[in-house]
């Protein structure tokens, strides 16, 4: 097949649409199904941007990748306190399935695919004026990079997130419904998993952000206000359960529909899930490999397009993460300069 044939095959006839009819159909559906639009929160825009960024960073640092879309990795842990990090490749198929299975895009809605997630002490990020204030409120000394690339300029903004706790309760009904949403059938939930609970704690955490000043529009595309550098530091998260074992959870969750064989194999290959933080890495979009940082083994994750790099490591009971638009050596240099 040559280029012309490809173009011909992909270039189907331009569809003729009737937008008025389509809009009427949309409005009828909105009314029939009771679909409501989002309502913007009435708060200052600058504050929203900053807190939103801080909350996103908190999602990374406090609950790390343990509570991302998958809802799988963290659930294999009975008593979890990470001492090292490993990459777990997530394929597009995994993301597609999980994206469909979730009822929404946030953490709570996504974990709702498998049960009930409730923040007992929700993370409440707030801005402080200095690193010393951040350290005082977090209860530990917040480290900061002493060497920065020339692309990172200005003073950072400081955020502190309180120690947060959450409870997750497994539900066979939720799991069945989420599988049904994507026309799959979930395997029966073992009786000892149904209703069992995971208790998750994270933080406190300190986040330092460079390059996202009020009104910043430096980034391109649909996602403006992206900082140039984010440095996160948090007490390592912990997960405990009310009795279910790691192996029981791992076997059941990896048998869920939509979990690719590659993801299942990667999760199974984690030798000691009680002390290893699995970091989901989109297999088609990013590269990752172990690196030595601050004298310990950490993980480098880089976006294939060169947009973002991250270095994640654990040392002395603390999780650290450096994220920004850098190459690997720059990201490692920043990470190693943390004092």
């Amino acid at each position: 097949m040559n280029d012309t044939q490809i173009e011909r095959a992909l270039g189907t006839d331009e569809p003729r649409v009737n937008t008025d009819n389509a809009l009427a159909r949309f409005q009828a559906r909105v009314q029939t199904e009771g679909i409501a639009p989002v309502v913007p929160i009435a708060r200052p825009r600058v504050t929203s941007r900053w807190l939103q960024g801080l909350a996103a960073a908190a999602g990374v640092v406090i609950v790390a990748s343990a509570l991302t879309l998958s809802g799988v990795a963290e659930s294999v842990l009975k008593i979890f306190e990470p001492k090292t990090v490993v990459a777990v490749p997530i394929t597009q198929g995994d993301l597609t399935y999980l994206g469909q299975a979730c009822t929404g895009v946030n953490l709570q809605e996504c974990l709702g695919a498998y049960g009930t997630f409730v923040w007992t002490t929700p993370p409440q990020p707030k801005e402080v004026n200095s690193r010393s204030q951040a350290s005082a409120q977090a209860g530990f000394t917040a480290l900061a990079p002493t060497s920065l690339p020339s692309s990172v300029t200005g003073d950072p903004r400081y955020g502190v997130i309180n120690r947060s706790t959450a409870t997750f309760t497994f539900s066979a009904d939720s799991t069945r419904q989420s599988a049904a949403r994507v026309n799959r059938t979930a395997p029966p939930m073992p009786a000892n998993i149904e209703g069992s609970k995971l208790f998750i704690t994270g933080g406190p955490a300190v986040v330092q952000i460079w390059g996202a000043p009020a009104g910043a529009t430096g980034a391109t595309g649909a996602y403006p206000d992206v900082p140039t550098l984010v440095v996160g530091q948090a007490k390592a998260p912990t997960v405990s359960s009310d009795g279910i074992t790691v192996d029981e959870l791992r076997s059941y969750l990896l048998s869920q529909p939509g979990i690719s064989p590659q993801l299942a194999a990667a999760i199974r290959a984690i030798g000691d899930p009680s002390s290893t933080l699995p970091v989901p890495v989109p297999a088609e979009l990013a590269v990752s490999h172990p690196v030595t940082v601050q004298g310990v083994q950490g993980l480098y994750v880089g976006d294939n397009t060169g947009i973002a790099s991250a270095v994640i490591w654990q040392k002395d009971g603390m999780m650290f993460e450096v994220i920004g638009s850098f190459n690997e050596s720059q990201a490692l240099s920043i990470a190693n300069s943390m004092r």
Partner: protein
Amino acid sequence: MLYGCMQASPSMTLPARDPGHVVSAVSPAFEALFRSEYARVVGIAHRVLADQAEAEDVAQDVFVSFYRGHPADAAYGPAWLHAAAAHAALNALRGRDRRSRREAALAVPPDATAAQDDPAETVVASETREEVRAVLARLPERSAAMLALRYAGLSYAEIAAALDVRASSVGTLLRRAEDAFRRELR
């Protein structure tokens, strides 16, 4: 983590408090967005699915998702819709079973660019379309989305905004996607 957040709204929003409240009409801002982007969203889905009715179903779902989760006047609205159209159509494509795929392909009217006075070539074109859709379904998501957006007529800048990549990288990424496409066809 970064990637998991890609569907989230950059602005701070909450679901409406009263799920029982039914709006009588969409806001003027949403209607304007719908009118300006509907044809384009259908066009993107149509490139993937080669079935207009199915493409319009996908477009409806895409607009519902946006309506539920994003402010109508968000600057990123068109880019979000374009990306969502490609991804949703690819999901739909992968969800077809073999039989329905064949039926859909056969139901597609002959391509205007094909030699319609040559029945043999028309059959070849139909088979080619089916093969192309199968290949699209197998490609990595971003590659397939990139091809769908490009062949739907989006500019490099629009593709960059939709897929959140640098505009200067689109040419390279597009070539890689086309190479992957050809490899899959072999």
